[in-house]
């Protein structure tokens, strides 16, 4: 990521910091930039940003950069950073919060497939109470294919279809593909939980 020169913006800083701290439950002020987290982050190299840098962006009030960077989307929630952090700061909780904040701000995800994946998963659970792998993959594949078609990325669509077909065939051969649908009897309870989540999100 090519960062512009960082400036301290007290007004924005306190607003952004407070929001991220509240949502993530993490004490970002405890970070003393020792970078133990950076050494173990499996996506730091590819993201061009490590947990310590992300925290720094937030402390400086760089809202735009903080909401829109590769680490937010590539974070695997592996919890390596937080387990090693001497101050118990769990950056995966921070990237979760930022992901939700960037969604609310209608910022396009830098890795659209990640957003589409988690949305499709949550949606699939809301239908039957359990995830049905085929339904969920269909929801997901359809969403990313539609996005890519809009951008004219036909090669990517074909590549994806080939890979999925290859995996699907092997899964059939190994009898690891299941067609049956399992539905939770207490589905109304699950639906209520979703409704409540929606109310809370407002």
């Amino acid at each position, binding site marked *: 990521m090519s960062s512009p020169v960082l400036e301290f913006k007290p007004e924005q800083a306190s607003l952004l910091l407070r929001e991220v701290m509240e949502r993530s439950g993490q004490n970002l002020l405890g970070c003393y930039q020792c970078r133990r987290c950076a050494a173990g982050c499996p996506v730091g190299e590819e993201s061009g940003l490590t947990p310590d840098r992300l925290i720094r962006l937030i402390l400086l009030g760089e809202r735009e950069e903080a909401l829109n960077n590769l680490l937010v989307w590539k974070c*695997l929630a592996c919890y390596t950073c937080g387990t090693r952090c001497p101050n118990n700061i769990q950056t995966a909780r921070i990237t979760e919060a930022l992901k939700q904040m960037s969604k609310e701000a209608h910022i396009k995800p830098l890795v659209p497939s990640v957003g589409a994946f988690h949305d499709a*998963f949550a949606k699939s*659970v809301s239908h039957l109470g*359990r995830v049905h*792998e085929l339904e969920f993959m269909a929801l997901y594949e359809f969403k990313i294919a539609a996005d890519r078609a809009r951008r004219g990325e036909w090669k990517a669509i074909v590549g994806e279809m080939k890979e999925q077909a290859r995996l699907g065939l*092997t899964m059939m051969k190994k009898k690891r593909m299941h067609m049956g649908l399992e539905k939770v009897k207490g589905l109304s309870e699950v639906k209520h*939980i979703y409704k409540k989540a929606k109310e809370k999100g407002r």
Partner: protein
Amino acid sequence: MEIAYYPGCSLHASSELYDIQNKMVFRQLGLELKELDDWNCCGATSASKTDEFLSIALPARNLGIADASGLSDIVIPCSSCYSRMLVSQKRLAEDPSLRAVINAELARKVEGKIRILSILEVLAPRAKSGELGEKVKRKLEGLRPACYYGCLLTRFPSDISVPDDVENPQGMENVCTALGAKPLEWGYKTDCCGASAVVNDADQSLSLMYKIMKDAVARGANCFVTTCPMCQMNLDAYQDRVGEKYGIGARLPVYFLTELVGLAMGIGPGEMQIDRHFVDAVGLLKELKLL
């Protein structure tokens, strides 16, 4: 003894063989697995990445059912389900007002009393006490597994105590040793395989699996062992792609830990459906004359 059991979605779908093996192997250990009645999906990592409330409330419904079962322990094989249920239980214990809000939606309320265990937390103490060793009928000699823990058995997003060393856990190695196998020391046992990134950020995940594969092969492993169905699926189903992309010729079968326990206790590979792996998992056993 009866013990509650939460299989989770993947054990009722692509990892059904793991479900079958768990029930068989635990029965031989004198543990009857009682599947939670009408359980729902825990929301996995996706819920926590989309909605904080959902990520606590979805597992909570299962915790309520588990508490109502009257059993003292629940075993959860999938690392992701295990992690999400622990996180939810802890959060609800610390936040009575959230617990009240969620309990209001539930027929069976969360009380927070059931003890949540991973497969390893059931097996490792039995290896230590010698109970497992006594039940071994066929020593797994020649098996050199790289024990793979992945992320969620030893690392949690909140303060949860871990019964093993966080950076260099030994539980799975101890179980394998009790079975007569020779687990090896290696550097990637708790590294991330990418989990769902294999679907939504494939190159990233393949490069992580490459590092895992490379180290296991270099150290002379002839198989992987794991307890997590997601890790198992990734290392198994995508091994060809990783090998092709990065030029690794070796293919290592990826066993579930219970599968090895079952084999050592004399359960047949057919019964345990060991032929349903992607990388051939039967050939090595024949080669080592374990079948």
